Each structure stands twice: as C-alpha cells, then as structure tokens.
C-alpha cells in the first residue's frame, strides 16, 4: 500500500470513520414526514408523476402499519421517531447526479472519501464507483469498456429519468413492495439516491462495482435504493460500504435493495457496514432468482446501534441457487439482529447459509432466519450453519431459525454452535510468543475467515481491520 494510504492504517475509529465535516446543504427538507415533505422531495428531484404517486402510496402504508415490537429478543426501536429525523439533505455540489472526477467535488466531500480510501480502491480493484453523501450520489463513474458493452451503473435518481421503463417496471413492484414491512414502506415514501445496475445478456463484469454511502449530518435519515437487473447469463459483483460520524441523536438508515437475477445469471452482493453506533440500520434486501441463476449475499455488520437485516432470496426458477454468508460483530450497546430468508419455490433449488457472530462487552447478536420449501420444490436442498463466539458474560447470543418444509424429496440440515474463545487455543498461541490480545485477535480472524475469503482482497483486509478496531484494547 502506498504511503498516501497511511491514514488507512489508523487504528482510532474516530480518525478513520467517525470524523465529522461541517454540515452544509444545498437543500434540506424539514424534519418529519408528511405528504408535503414527500411532494417537496419529489419536486426537488423533478420526478415523473408515477413516482410521486408510488411515494404517496408508500407513505399511506407506512402510516397504517404498526412498529414491529413483538419479535423475541429484537432491538428496541422505541427511540426511532421518524418525525425527529431529517429525511432529505441534498449536498452542496454543482453537478446533480454525481461528477465523474473526484477533483470536481468540494474539498470537504472529496476529503471524506479520500479518508475512507474510496478513490484508491477504485484505481486498483473496481469496475465502477458510486459515492453517496447524505441523500444524493455525488460521484459516479464506470470504466468505459463496460459502458461500451451496454452495462449501466448510475445513481438511482438519474435512472428514474433515463431508464424510466425499466425502473417503472421493477421499482418496488415485484420484489420489495412497500407493504412488505413498515420500514420498506418508509423507504418507498422517502427514498433518495442509491444505485441502478443493469447488465445485458451474457456480459460478465469481471471486477466489482462499488457504492459507498456516507451520512455526515446529525439526525438525518438515509434511504438509498439499489436496483440490480442482471439479464440472462450475465455476472456482476456489487459491493456497498457504509459509515457515518457518531452523534448523540440517532440517525436512521433504511435502504432498499432489489435484485433480479436472470436465467443462469450470477449476482454477488457484498456489504461491509460500519455505521456509527447511534445509527439504526433497518434494511430490506431481496433477490428474485430465475432458472439456473445464482444469488450470493455477503454481509459484514460491524457498526450501528441496532441492525435488523435479513437478506432474502426467492428461488423462482428450476435449479436456482442461493448462498448467504453473514458476519455480525456486536460490542457495547449494540444489538445486531441479522439472518437470512430463502424461499424455495421451484424444483432442484439449493441454498446454503453460513452465519458467524461475535458478541462482547454486553453486545447482543441474534441470528433470525427462515427457510421455506414450497410444495413441488422437489429435490431441493438447504444447509444452514450458525456459529457464535462470545467474549464475556454480559453479552448475549441468540439463534432463532425457522424451517418450513412442504415437500418430501428434500434435504434440509440446520446446525448451530455457541461457545467462548477456547482457553486452550489462547494458551497455545501464547506459548508461541503472542500476547493475549494478539492471540484472541488471531482466533477471531480465523473464525471469520470463511467470510473474508469470499471478498476481494482489499475488502477482506478492510473487514479484518474493522474487526481489529473493534477488538482493540477491549480484551482482558
């Protein structure tokens, strides 16, 4: 790594992720949520009428639906008062829809992404990058060779204008309707920013595309929407990263992700989430997978005060497959409630779910997952594996899997283990000259390795470093 990347080795989270920039905005909506706010946002974006109507319908859904409160062991959401957040902040940049040169960004925004290492990663390992600051994408670029092949990677607001037909067909209609849950409805009402990815037939995008989401202002909500359409036989890997500085008031992140995996297509969706520990992270992510298609969800949840995230795959076509790999790390005051949902709706579908969680200093991790095998999904198989590592007695780790099997010619296996770090393992490493902290860090790195090895090397390194940051000085 070059010397101008030295700051990335910074082990202080504040310098690394939680630094604050002055809060500046070209346009900020009023706090709270009502029909007027939504009209104002829609107008500021110059949206077509149908999108405004969808937003207003979603708002009605949101107002109608109760808060989820009766899930066993779920995070406490009583602090989440939507009327206290600023739902929409357009950053003060000249070009709407994102510039394609980092140098065209205002210094403070450019500096933010420099510190996060995004431009550097773009040079080395990515096909394209989108960067969202507050509610809007400020930077968007993709290598020309992909553009020539018809690959589209643009911010979602721009896609509404430029690819209206596709967006109108797929946007919160077939995959994640606003009625899915209260926060999906909220998202549908005030979404802003996010990415639109379209990969034409038989096109393989061989380096990942990445979007990075940054919240800078206190008390704001970020509601980006990501729509990925991968046509027959295509392949793409999408990575999202998230972070925010820490404030005393709560921030809300409620993203929506919809993925359409065409016949024999392959989509990998990777998330490394490092929201500040005052952020509520309540997302809805779902993929519909056609015949022979393959969906992979890889999630690392390190940050946030509370996360509720259960990426879902609907295996709709014969031979479709799903792979979930999730890792959750909950420290003091964090409740990371994650899992997976898979619906096997066709014969010969396969899913594998691998979940690893680490809790320490009173943190709480929950695995909550549902595997449903529909009648007629013959010769389907699923395997679920959950492992939890607990550091101390103040922490909690729950595993709550649900399996619904309506077909007999299936192979279903679920396994889970919970344990503490083995004293013998620590002793062995110490006898080899490592100190206690290093030994434990090494064991944790080994524990999460099945996840990190699925990520491009830059992100694997990043994830490992995040875990090190979390572990720093906290081990006794």
């Amino acid at each position, binding site marked *: 790594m070059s010397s101008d990347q030295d700051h990335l080795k910074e082990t202080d989270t504040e310098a690394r992720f939680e630094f604050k920039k002055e809060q500046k905005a070209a346009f900020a909506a009023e706090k709270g949520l009502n029909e007027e706010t939504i009209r104002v946002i829609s107008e500021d974006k110059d949206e077509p009428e149908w999108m405004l109507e969808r937003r207003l319908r979603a708002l009605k859904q949101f107002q109608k639906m109760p808060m989820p409160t009766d899930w066993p062991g779920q995070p406490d959401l009583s602090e989440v008062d939507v009327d206290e957040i600023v739902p929409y902040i357009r950053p003060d940049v000249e070009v709407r829809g994102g510039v394609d040169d980092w140098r065209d960004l205002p210094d403070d925004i450019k500096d933010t992404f420099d510190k996060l290492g995004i431009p550097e990663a773009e040079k080395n390992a990515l096909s394209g990058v989108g960067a969202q600051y507050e509610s809007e994408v400020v930077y968007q670029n993709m290598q020309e060779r992909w553009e020539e092949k018809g690959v589209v990677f643009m911010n979602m607001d721009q896609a509404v204008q430029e690819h209206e037909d596709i967006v109108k067909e797929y946007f919160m209609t077939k995959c994640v309707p606003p009625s899915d849950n209260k926060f999906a409805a909220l998202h549908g009402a005030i979404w802003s920013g996010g990415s639109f990815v379209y990969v034409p037939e038989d096109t393989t995008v061989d380096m990942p595309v990445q979007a990075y989401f940054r919240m800078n202002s206190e008390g704001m909500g970020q509601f980006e929407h990501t729509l990925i359409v991968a046509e027959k036989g295509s392949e793409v890997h999408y990575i999202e990263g998230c972070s925010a500085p820490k404030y005393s008031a709560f921030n809300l992140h409620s993203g929506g992700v919809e993925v359409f995996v065409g016949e024999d297509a392959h989509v990998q969706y990777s998330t490394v989430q490092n929201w500040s520990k005052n952020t509520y992270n309540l997302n809805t992510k779902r993929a519909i997978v056609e015949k022979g298609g393959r969906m992979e969800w890889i999630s690392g949840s390190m940050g946030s005060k509370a996360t509720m995230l259960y990426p879902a795959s609907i295996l709709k076509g014969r031979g479709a497959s799903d792979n979930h790999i999730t890792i959750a790390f909950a420290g003091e005051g964090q409740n990371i409630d994650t899992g997976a949902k898979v619906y096997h709706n066709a014969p010969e579908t396969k899913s594998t779910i691998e979940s690893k969680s680490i809790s320490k200093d009173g943190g709480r991790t929950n695995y909550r997952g549902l595997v449903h095998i529909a009648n007629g999904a013959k010769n389907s198989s699923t395997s679920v594996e959950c492992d939890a590592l607990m550091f101390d*007695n103040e922490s909690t780790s729950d*595993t*709550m899997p*649900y399996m*619904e*099997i309506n077909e007999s010619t*299936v192979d279903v296996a679920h396994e889970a283990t919970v*344990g*503490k770090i083995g004293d013998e393992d620590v002793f062995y490493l110490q006898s080899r000259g490592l100190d206690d902290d290093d030994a434990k860090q090494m064991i944790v790195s080994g524990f999460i390795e099945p996840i990190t090895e699925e990520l491009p090397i830059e992100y694997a390194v990043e994830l490992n470093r995040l875990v090190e940051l979390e572990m720093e000085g906290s081990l006794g």
Partner: protein
Amino acid sequence: MSAQLPANLSAETVREISDARDEPEWLLEARLAALEALDELELPDVIQTPGRRWTNLEALDFETLVDPLNQSDETSREAPEDVVVLPFTEALDEYSDLIEEHFGSVVDLETNYLTALSAALFTTGTFVYVPEEVNAEDVKIRAEMNSRSLFSHTLVVTEKSSSVTILEAIESGDKSDEERYFSNLVEIAAGENSYVQYGSLQNLDEETYTYSLKRGDADTYATINWIEGNLGSRLTRSDVETELNGEASETKIVGAFFGHDDQHIDVNARVWHQAENTTADLVTRGVLDDAARSVYEGVQDVGRDAWSTNSYQRENTLMLSDESEADASPKLIINNHDTEASHAATVGQVDKEDLFYMVSRSIPEQQARNMLVEGFFVPVLEEIEVDEFRDDLEELIAARLH
C-alpha cells in the same frame, strides 16, 4: 380474551367438581383462581411467519369440546411397594400438605388459557411420591378416556437421593365419533440428587384434540428425563420443559412422533439453564406420512448465572409422503459465554443408498423401508427404561407402517 369461555363454565361448575370429590378448601380456591384468570389469558404461543401460522388453536371450538361435569376415565396404576402412587383425589386424604406445597409450583397454572382451564376442571390424574433414598422402577399408569372432555393433573415429588421410572399411557376407551378434548398437566419436583424418568405415550383416537404441558424443576444434582411419544389425536400440542434450577442438574427431553392421515403434531421441548454446571440433551425424532403435518420448537435458554453449561439439541424429521409438511425452529438463547451449546435439525427422506443396499440383499422394498423407519426411532427407544413402554411404542410404530 382469546378464546370464548364455554357457557357451561362458571364458578358453580368448579365448586360442583370440587365438592363431589370432597376436596380441601385450598384446592377449590386454586381452581377458582384459575377460572377467574381465564378472562385475561391467551392461548399458547404459536410461531407465525409471513403467511404461515404453524398451529391454529383458535379454530378449536371449546364451547362444544368442553363438558366439565361429565368427565369419565378408567385408570389403572401399578407400582412397587415403597413408592406412593395414588389417584390425585385419593392422595389428598393423606398427602394434602405435600400436594398443596407443590401443586402449581412447577407449572404456573396461569401460563395460558389452556393450563388455567385444565387446573380449574381436572378430575383425574395421579400423585407419585418417592421417599428419600427409595429406588422405584416401573411405575405404570394407564388411562382410558371415556368422555367428550377429560382434564388430568399429575404431580411427581421425589425426595433426596431417590429414583423412579414412570410410564403414563393414555388412549381412548369407548368408541365414539364425536370430537373430543384431552388436557394433561404434569409437574415434577425432583429433589436433591434424585432421578426421574417420565415416559408418556399418547395414542388417543383421531377425533381427539390433545393439549399437554409437562414441566420439571430439577434441584441440585437431580436428573429429569422425559420420553414423549405421540402417535394419536387429530391435533396434538405438547410442551415438555425442564428448569435446571440446581447446580449440576441434568435433563434429557427425548421425543418420538409418527403422524399419518391429516394429523397435526405440534411438539415443543424447552430447557432453562439457571445454575452452574448443568447439562441438557434434547432429542426428537419424527416421521410423517400422508398429509400429516408436524411443528417443532426447541429452546435452549442459558441464563446469566449458568456458568459452565453444556446444552445439545437434535431434531430429525423423516418425510414419507409428498403431502406431508414439517416446520421446525430450534432456538438457542445464550446469556453466559461459558457455554458449550449446539443444535441441529434435519428434514429428509429414507436414505436411498440404505434402501438400495437392503433391496440388494433381497429384502422387498416396502419391508426395507419399514425397517429403516423403525431403525430411525432407535435412538429414542434406547433411552426408555420401562420395558413395557418400549414394547408398546415399537408395536404402535410397526402397526402404523403395515
């Protein structure tokens, strides 16, 4: 309130039941308190996922099913000499104080609507008392249900360093085409260093709806092992639970079920680790044929003070037909990091290679399949200590296969 209070149910009904049995005042009061609580109580918790309610108890018509004043059963009890095994009512004459101390102490009678209903109306059941250092084997309680509804309450109290193995079997007596309701509460208070194996075999006719809650409280060094066999009933809801309250206490919850036709079997195994060095092992094996449906929930809850816990859970379901359905949710709730816990659940069919091997040894396919299903239950059968229970269960499984 969640279920309609049957019209024929009032404090007067409860008094009538209690008076007819010449019960002590404390028991009448406990019954009346349970009756009064009905208004506030909900039906037992049932798992609900988007678009799917795992068991639908709301559909039961308690108005018709519950006939409190016409309960009838025929129960035989066999026991070795040095242990007390008495019909619940008879036991009140001599052991009223002991029963008062433990009645409702293990099962909270107001756990839900169905437990309170059971406590208010029970007319049968057994009291088992094992004095200090007595080892009793093969206590056998066999009951026949002969009325539209039957409510049973069984209490087992074991003193220090005693041991007992029990079989409780329930089946339908007289033939009847009407829908029936059987409710069974079982409480075990296992004293220090005592051992209880409680086997239960439910084979009621398939017009009967069954609710059963069995719960044990294990003192220091005590062991409570449950064997739960469910073959009968149209709908079974069975909860088997152990609280490991004493240091180094242990429990096994072993279950077997075999559903066919349109039977619905909802079995639940739960354990709470509340003290140091406790051990739990939950094993359930189930087979489903025709349009039968099973629901399984297992919970291993490790409390903050349960240092050095070992907790294991396995659930395996074998599906013999396309129309059968199986839902399973094995849960781990871990609040102490000094824990070794695991759980595993599988759903599948008879292994094709095993079947092929047996057919290649000239065993007809149907017979080979039956042998493999019988073999599937072996881990449960092996745990059973009352020989008669093992024989009965094996016989019922074989009968269902042929």
